[in-house]
């Protein structure tokens, strides 16, 4: 059984998913991906997920709605969430915080800071 921790990446931009995935895999994490909120919810099937990195503006289901829905699932109630978005408005940040996110990171991100935030928040 793998001892690696698993992180779910949710973003409609393939290139962003690739960059985040590469950054996290390089640091020894297992990564699973969702292309929007709706797709990501199907990945929350009971498996252990130690952290979620989610975009905000996505088709089908946006990041805020996704995090709100994820937090209602008992298995993921305490899974920490980092919002990774181009949005920097205070309203959206407040919405993210209200939905249950632990951090708000504005794109473009630096891999080192992403890893620092992940290691700070990830579940043991």
């Amino acid at each position, binding site marked *: 059984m793998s001892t690696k921790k698993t992180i779910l990446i949710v*973003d409609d*931009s*393939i*290139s*962003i998913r*690739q*960059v985040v*995935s*590469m950054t996290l*895999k*390089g640091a020894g994490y297992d990564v699973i991906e969702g292309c929007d909120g709706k797709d990501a919810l199907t990945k929350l099937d009971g498996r252990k997920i130690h952290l979620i990195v989610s975009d*905000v*503006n996505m088709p089908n289901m946006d990041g805020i709605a996704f995090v709100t829905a994820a937090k209602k699932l008992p298995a993921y109630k305490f899974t920490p969430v980092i919002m990774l*978005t*181009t*949005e*920097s*408005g205070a309203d*959206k*940040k407040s919405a*993210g*915080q209200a939905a249950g*996110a*632990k*951090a*708000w*990171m*504005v*794109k*473009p*991100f*630096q*891999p080192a*800071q*992403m890893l620092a*935030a992940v290691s*700070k928040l990830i579940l043991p």
Partner: protein
Amino acid sequence: MPPSSNTSLAVSSFQRAAPSTAGITLTTVAVCVVLGVAGTLWAGGASALSWMLAAALIVLGALAAGWGYARHQQAQKNAAQAFAADLEHSVKHSAAQGTELDGVCIEVLPVWAEQIEAARSHTEDAITQLTQRFAELAGRIHMTVEGSQDGNAQGLVSLLSSSQKELDGIVTGLRKALSSKEILQREITHLHDFTGQLQAMAKDVADVAKQTNLLALNAAIEAARAGEAGRGFAVVADEVRKLSTLSGNTGQKISETVETVNSAILRTLEASEQYARQDAETLATSGEVIENVITQFNASASGLLQQSNTLREQSEAVGAEIADVLVALQFQDRVSQMLSHIRNDLNKLEQHLLERRSLAAQGQALKPIDTKAWLNELAKTYTMAEQLAVHQGKAPASTAPSDITFF
């Protein structure tokens, strides 16, 4: 805006034309009446005729004024009609222009939107592929760096180190063997010393035999002198002489044998010393060869290690550059969002124009477009501070990467 400018031109020409005509007519009549009355009164004094003339002039003046007013009214009416005609023409003209513009917009807007979407889509595809390639490159470099850290160079160094230890062990073993031979040589030399003693002992035996022989000879002489009484003794003396002769021969043989053994021991010692010298030379040569080989291997390994380190450093530098490139490539997500917002607004405008055309076709009144509200709604769709800055006509602020807030 063509319609309003045409309308304002018509209005102003109408306003200019109407008062000037009326003003000239009334002023002329009034001046004539005043001058006539004044002249009549001045010429004729305050006579009845004068008053009648003055009254007639006033009546004439009033008639003239009435005619003038009627002319003025007619002019005003004509101007109003001209203005209405102008206005109608302007409205028709501008309506026709507006319809043309709407038509152009309805045709062009979807094309623009599609072009923008195509550009966005191409960029997204290209950047995605580029990102994927860079990510693969970064992965390979990472693996190479990891491999070089764990593997070859370090492995080679440890292999050389263990080989040197093993070879040194062999040399030590050989040295031990050589020192064992030296012990053997010392033993043989010791044996050679014993042969000297044996030789001396053999000489002693020969000397004793010689003395015994002389003694036997003297005993035989004395026995002969004793005559018959010494005949038995003469036999004994003869036997003693025989024994002494035998002892002398044995001593001689011992001496010869010891000599033979001594020669053999000396040859053995000589051979052993020669072998020991050869062994020592071989050992010295082996040690030098081993040392040379190890030194050469070490030099090669050191070179390899240095090259490997350089390669690893270069790989790490390339890896860092690629990481920076990947960060920079995130611009695509921002550009994609900006283009999507523009495309959506173009689609919205097209939809709005189609609705207006439909309403116009049904003969319904068209509401004016609220530009400010439109711009406000557009601003609400923005997700980035730089979009808002551009919208407000400011220079887009440079985006600070990784602005992070913890809740």
